[in-house]
């Protein structure tokens, strides 16, 4: 190829100007590292011998195998004096090898950042040349690696000191950064922003506290198609005769709804695996009956209606509403924010939105609640030790100073966050870790199962977990679900400032204060009245029949004021079944309904634990066949949403039900719609209709 042309094309690669924030954080990290290295160098003996000389591997051409070979030849072949040198080098090298091996093993077992692993690998590879530098290297390594992960079981003392060291480095970096970062809003700007906040938000910040306005999100480049979802199939129709009992865990997550809305607003039909029908239904607030006393945290409301999409079938709605906590009765909260500040978070709908969201949440807290802030990127570190909310400005400054850059070592961050929460554990209050991430944990323990193990271990400490997902394109939804489902937690997906307000302000009490945990539902259908049933949604939450009574099995949690809805589609006895009867099965005589249970379609059982208890309690209620009084608007609304979810997933049970039917039903059931969420849903259905393949 023509050299001039090639030169022109390649010379033309137009590297964009670097991002100022990325630059700042990189430089600050480097300066912190420089100071650490310098301190060690000062303390290290210098120039004692030929081998003590400080040389760096970076100046050596270690990538060329031919050169390495020639060096070896020089070393091993030669005169007797050379042999002596070789012997010494050989011995040191062997020791190095052992040490480094240990180190590598350690760093593989524990979570370290990329660099530590890379350095360790290099040391192994370079062992022949590296002997002279070893003294320096050995000392430099521990601080370069962000501490082998402290596991609570082994060596708690040692790991603590190392983590503290890491925390110090973290602090250091932030203080250094704080110097450069310009202070947020001040003076007149602050007044203006305060007034605007007061108008636009139900919870206005107290006077004297500066809350920068959330900025509108401008268009920008987005990654596409790297989102990860757990795949699942819609639950099949089941014969009551074969399997009369259905068991599942409740799910109050709403992440799927915001994800679906975001995709549809962009004119894209979402990945079917991203549509979890129960999360769509539970996104909305319903006015189900509250329990009479606070002894029981919630009460089921059961309604039976005709199925709008199948002529002969019926829908059984099970609605639950947890009691709400009055503002003055809110328990003390000990919150640890864990913010992902890796490079991937550097886009307008991620880190800046996280900051605005956290500030909103801060406004809903009581003055003596405590908040701590940890971050994770290349390494994990504490930015803000637990601080009382009354010292709001300190917290706001810490939030404002967050910058994105580096890769994501989520597991180390989670360990650190739990450590902080444990340190200030409040027996009477609510202890919660709130993770804000795009879910891309690419360093250290990153497989879903390994993280699950960590989380499960931490769950027993009584600390709750909330996962807030941000951004799209690189979102690891499946990991977020794993975290939330296994860590006594909930997951929400935040795509706009409005969504942040819904999750963190309007629903602050349900997001923050659990009233029951490990809530499981089991329904046994009466074979005399019901032939078949099918649970709509909850596929990822299905439990085995025996799990219901096993208190060790984790299940979903309900927060103050949460509503949960589950919908079954049933085929009543006598209607045309979906499943043909078995030819060879023993034909039973059509027995007359036993008088005792004549009016019961089924029996509903719910098991739950109070937040601080480990013994389950039981709520039971029969589902009566004539519970189909006039369906109220809440039930119709939930049905419309469930129908929409099924169409969107391409579910085959839904028959000829179309987006238009959904819109019609939804319009009828819209109700007062205080926050405009139901209107937004209807709009979303229209978007789906427009984007659907014809």
């Amino acid at each position, binding site marked *: *190829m023509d*050299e001039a042309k*090639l*030169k022109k*094309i*390649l*010379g*033309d*690669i*137009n*590297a*964009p*100007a*670097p*991002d100022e924030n*990325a*630059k700042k*954080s*990189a*430089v600050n*990290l*480097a*300066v912190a*590292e*420089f*100071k650490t*290295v*310098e301190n060690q*160098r*000062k303390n290290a003996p210098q120039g004692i011998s030929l081998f003590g000389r*400080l*040389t*760096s591997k*970076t*100046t050596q*051409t*270690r*990538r*060329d195998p031919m*050169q390495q070979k020639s060096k070896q030849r020089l070393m091993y072949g030669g005169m007797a004096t050379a042999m002596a040198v070789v012997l010494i080098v050989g011995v040191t090298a062997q020791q190095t090898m052992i040490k480094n091996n240990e180190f590598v093993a350690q760093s593989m077992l524990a979570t370290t950042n*990329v*660099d530590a*692993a*890379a350095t360790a690998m*290099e040391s192994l590879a370079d062992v022949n040349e590296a002997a002279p530098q070893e003294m320096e290297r050995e000392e*430099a390594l521990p601080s*370069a690696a962000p501490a082998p992960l402290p596991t609570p079981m082994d060596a708690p003392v040692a790991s603590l000191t190392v983590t503290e060291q890491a925390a110090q480095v973290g602090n250091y970096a932030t203080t250094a950064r704080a110097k450069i970062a310009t202070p947020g809003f001040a003076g007149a700007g602050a007044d203006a922003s305060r007034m605007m906040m007061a108008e636009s938000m139900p919870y206005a910040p107290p006077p004297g506290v500066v809350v920068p306005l959330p900025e509108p999100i401008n268009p920008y*480049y987005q*990654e*596409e198609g*790297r989102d990860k979802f757990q795949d699942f199939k819609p639950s099949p129709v089941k014969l009551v005769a074969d399997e009369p009992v259905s068991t599942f865990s409740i799910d109050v997550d709403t992440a799927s709804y915001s994800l679906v809305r975001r995709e549809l607003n962009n004119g894209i039909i979402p990945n079917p695996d991203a549509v979890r029908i129960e999360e769509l239904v539970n996104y909305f607030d319903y006015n189900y009956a509250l329990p009479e006393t606070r002894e029981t945290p919630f009460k089921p409301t059961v309604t039976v209606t005709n199925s709008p999409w199948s002529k002969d079938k019926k829908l059984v709605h099970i609605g639950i509403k947890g009691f709400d906590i009055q503002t003055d009765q809110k328990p003390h909260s000990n919150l640890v924010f864990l913010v992902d500040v890796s*490079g*991937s978070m*550097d886009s307008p709908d991620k880190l800046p939105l996280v900051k605005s969201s956290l500030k909103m949440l801060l406004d809903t807290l009581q003055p003596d609640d405590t908040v701590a802030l940890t971050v994770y990127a*290349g390494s994990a570190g504490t930015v803000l030790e637990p601080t009382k909310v009354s010292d709001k400005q300190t917290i706001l400054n810490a939030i404002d100073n967050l910058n994105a*850059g*580096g*890769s994501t070592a989520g597991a180390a961050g989670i360990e650190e966050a739990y450590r902080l929460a444990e340190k200030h554990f409040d027996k009477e209050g609510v202890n919660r870790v709130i993770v804000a991430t795009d879910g891309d944990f*690419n360093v250290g323990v990153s497989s879903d199962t390994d993280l699950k193990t960590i989380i499960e271990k931490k769950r027993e400490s009584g600390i709750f977990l909330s996962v807030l997902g941000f951004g799209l394109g690189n979102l690891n939804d499946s990991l977020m679900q794993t975290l939330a489902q296994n860590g006594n937690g909930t997951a929400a997906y935040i795509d706009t400032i409005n969504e942040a307000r819904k999750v963190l302000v309007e629903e602050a009490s349900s997001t923050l204060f659990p009233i029951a945990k490990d809530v499981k539902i089991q329904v046994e259908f009466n074979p005399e009245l019901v032939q078949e049933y099918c649970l709509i949604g909850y596929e990822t939450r299905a439990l085995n029949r025996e799990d219901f009574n096993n208190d060790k099995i984790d299940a979903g949690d309900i927060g103050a004021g949460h509503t949960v809805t589950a919908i079954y589609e049933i085929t009543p006895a006598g209607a045309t079944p979906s499943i043909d009867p078995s030819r060879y099965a023993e034909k039973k005589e059509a027995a007359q309904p036993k008088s005792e249970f004549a009016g019961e379609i089924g029996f509903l059982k719910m098991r739950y634990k109070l937040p601080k208890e480990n013994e389950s309690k039981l709520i039971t209620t029969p589902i009566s066949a004539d519970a189909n009084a006039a369906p109220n608007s809440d039930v119709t609304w939930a049905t419309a949403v469930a129908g929409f979810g099924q169409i969107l997933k391409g579910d085959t049970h839904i028959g000829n039900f179309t987006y238009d039917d959904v819109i019609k039903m939804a319009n009828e059931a819209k109700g007062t719609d205080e926050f405009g969420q139901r209107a937004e849903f209807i709009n979303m259905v229209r978007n789906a209709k427009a984007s659907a393949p014809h």
Partner: protein
Amino acid sequence: MSKNEDRELIKRAQSGDAGAFEALANQYYETMFKMAYKFCGNRPDAEDITQESCIRLARGLHSFKGDSAFTSWLYRLVINTGKDWYKSNNRHPKSDDGLETVQVSAKGEDQLYAKQVIAAVYELPEGERDALLLVMSEGLSHKEAGQILGCKESTISWRIHEARKKLGALFEKEQKYG
């Protein structure tokens, strides 16, 4: 800032002056970022690699002896960091999502052609790609490129010859008949 002042800054940083190091890092961040960007072709990766390079610079600056230009030394640092970064992240710079975003100043049809050529360059074997980028894009001599990549001048010449042959096979024909 002149070369001499840079040398002065490097010396002060090498003797342990954190302020000088900070100035140096600020000064060369852009250079390193641009190198990293050329190496990987997309911003997020380039930022990660540059951050990592800055940290390695902090650890390894004292080993810079001044026997080559500081920028050449930096090149090697960034390229090696990039290699390690991709190795440990189990990825490769040529992944599709990266190349879509490469920015070139050419417009229209030329731009399309340029992007295709660049995509092909990223598909080349590592050694050939690096040699080509250093010589053609950064305008270094074969000798300098050899120093940075740790091989002989003649090896660089050979790699560039090979790379051009491969690219020629891909693009010359289309140009003649198209």
